[in-house]
């Protein structure tokens, strides 16, 4: 009997709404099956099971909002199901208590008067920004808070905006970024791709972006230091899961991950992109596509500006930016030519790596793009 809990779909997720159960008790599931839809700040996400078995009693009602870690159901083995084992039901409350971290006793610097007023008006001082000496909360700060109207329930797109805002603020606050860039001659890659596309049916034709993704994924193998998370120290990751930034029409971003991108052929990457981009725009992503990303790529595509400097998505330690492919004068062997070129930028966490690592990484990508047949 394996407990199934509300998963964490991002470091900043505290709780989620159960919007739909896709299974009922007694259903047989296998690893990777989607069993429910959960709404978070990042939209509605399909959540998967990680074990084979039979679904037990459903412990959470649709539209309940529960903290991460709350027991949702159990996955039973065949024998357990046959024996009619009913898991002991935990109440939401107990489950929440069991998993929520101990409350942090943070001392809030506030004037005695500010405390008194906050208490009278039922304001949580933790939500008030202090402007007094040493950032202390003063009467004025509390009164400013009371004047604000309670924010209306946010729409999904507003939630996405806020999630991006929170992640980017945290990143810029905590991560000492360093930046490198290089401009790459794309002629070989594009010529090779045009030839390859001649042999492919229209719907399977490649786009430059898959070459770029593959080149980056392979570079992660060569320079594994950047395929990592910062978790109180650099932690290199075994899989290369490339997050691909998708802009939403309503504003905001989704970054679905193409898992094991280094193992996929260009054709498979193309299929994966065609699958994931529309789902990202519809906010219908799977949990495994959101929480395992090891490196993010933002690609502006054709006709875009020349370079983009990213903000790292924590806990990752780097983000690659691919500018628009454009024609430019190109000097080589003492001769001047016009080539299709692309500027690649790297923003990386200086806690985890140094410029030399970033340099090797960008050189590796360039090398890969000059050998498109090996991609």
């Amino acid at each position, binding site marked *: 009997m394996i407990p199934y809990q509300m998963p964490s779909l991002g470091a900043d997720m505290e709780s989620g709404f159960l919007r739909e159960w896709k299974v009922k008790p007694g259903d047989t599931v296998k690893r990777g099956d989607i069993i429910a839809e959960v709404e978070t700040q990042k939209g509605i996400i399909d959540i998967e099971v990680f074990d084979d078995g039979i679904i037990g009693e459903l412990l959470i009602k649709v539209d309940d909002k529960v903290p991460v870690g709350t027991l949702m159901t159990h996955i039973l083995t065949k024998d357990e199901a046959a024996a009619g084992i009913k898991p002991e039901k935990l109440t939401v409350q107990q489950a929440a208590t069991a998993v929520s971290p101990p409350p942090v006793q943070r001392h809030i610097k506030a*004037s*005695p*008067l500010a405390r008194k007023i906050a208490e009278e008006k039922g304001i949580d001082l933790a939500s008030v920004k202090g402007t007094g000496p040493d950032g202390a909360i*003063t009467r004025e700060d509390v009164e400013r808070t009371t004047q604000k109207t309670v924010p209306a329930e946010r729409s999904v797109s507003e939630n996405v905006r806020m999630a991006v805002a929170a992640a980017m603020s945290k990143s810029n606050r905590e991560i000492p970024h360093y930046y490198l860039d290089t401009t790459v001659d794309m002629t070989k890659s594009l010529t090779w791709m045009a030839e390859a596309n001649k042999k492919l049916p229209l719907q399977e034709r490649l786009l430059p972006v898959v070459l770029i993704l593959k080149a980056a994924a392979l570079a992660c193998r060569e320079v594994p230091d950047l395929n990592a998370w910062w978790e109180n120290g650099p932690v290199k990751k075994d899989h290369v899961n490339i997050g691909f930034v998708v802009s939403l029409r309503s504003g905001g971003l989704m970054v679905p991950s193409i898992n094991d991108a280094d193992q996929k052929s260009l054709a498979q990457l193309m299929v994966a992109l065609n699958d994931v981009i529309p789902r990202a725009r519809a906010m219908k992503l799977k949990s495994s596509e959101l929480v395992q990303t090891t490196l993010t790529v933002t690609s502006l595509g054709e006709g875009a500006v020349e370079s983009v400097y990213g903000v790292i998505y924590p806990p990752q330690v780097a983000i690659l930016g691919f500018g628009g492919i454009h024609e430019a004068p190109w000097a080589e062997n003492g001769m001047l030519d016009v080539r299709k070129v692309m500027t690649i930028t790297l923003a990386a966490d200086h806690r985890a790596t140094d410029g030399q690592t970033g340099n090797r990484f960008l050189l590796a990508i360039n090398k890969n793009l000059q050998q498109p047949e090996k991609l």
Partner: protein
Amino acid sequence: MTRLTYREALKQGLREALQSSDKVFLLGEDVGRYGGSFAVSKGLLQEFGPDRIMDVPLSESGFTGAGIGAALGGMRPIVEIMTVNFSLLAMDQIVNNAATLLHMSGGQLNVPLVIRMSCGIGRQLAAQHSHSWEPLFAHIPGLKVVSAGTHEDARKMIMAALLDPNPVILFEYTAMMNLEADMEDPLPAVDLSKAKLRKSGKDLSLITYGSGVYKCLHAAGELAKEGMEVEVLDLRSLRPIDTEAIVASVRKTHRALMVDDAWQSVSISSEVSARIMENCFYELDAPVQRLNGLEVPMPYPKHLEDAAIVQPSQIVNKVRQMLG
């Protein structure tokens, strides 16, 4: 309205006191023929005669004791100790006799004595003659201690002190002698037990006394130009301290800055700060702050002396900080 110096206000106060009763007389070093070392009693010898304006030998303990004796005998003496610096020599008389006899006699013997002393800093008199010892006297039960930080109080405090049946120490300020100000005429009597709001404001309370009052008023004027409405509370009575007035002011402004020239440790400022904590902690919107003289023997050179005592610009800066 009449315009007069702080010295002249003191003299008028003394004259009023001497005129009020034959029992009132002034004794002190050089108060008669010399006219007082700061010319406060100049001309009073001619006006009231040697029985009422009495020059005494250089013995603070001796003539203060004589004053206590006269008070016990039914007279209303005003003892002038030339400056606060010499009051240490009279300390035993003040603490062990003047302040204590009512208690020691089981309430039979009160000491209706006024001791005036010129006090404070600002005339390059160096380390032995630049003391701010209000806190020493304010420490002692049995005394009343008042401080004339304005012309009004210089004029009216002597009379009020004389009306008190117990010993009153009256501090006057050397550095302010030539300072001119407009004064109402006639002035109402002062109530020695009450602090006085010299300027009303809503943003912060400057709590001060003595030489700090005009400095604070000056600073408050500067701050008003920047839109900060600062209140100036003149304590006037340093023993007892008018806690009620302090609390009322802090309840209004929620911020307090104490200003005085005395050394900070164990000072009037310390006491006021403690009373604010005890009585209206939950009204505070910022930590109570203090500006005091530096804790060094007073330097002689002018620029170092200035650096050692509170300047109005410091008050302005401190208030700016506190109001963010």
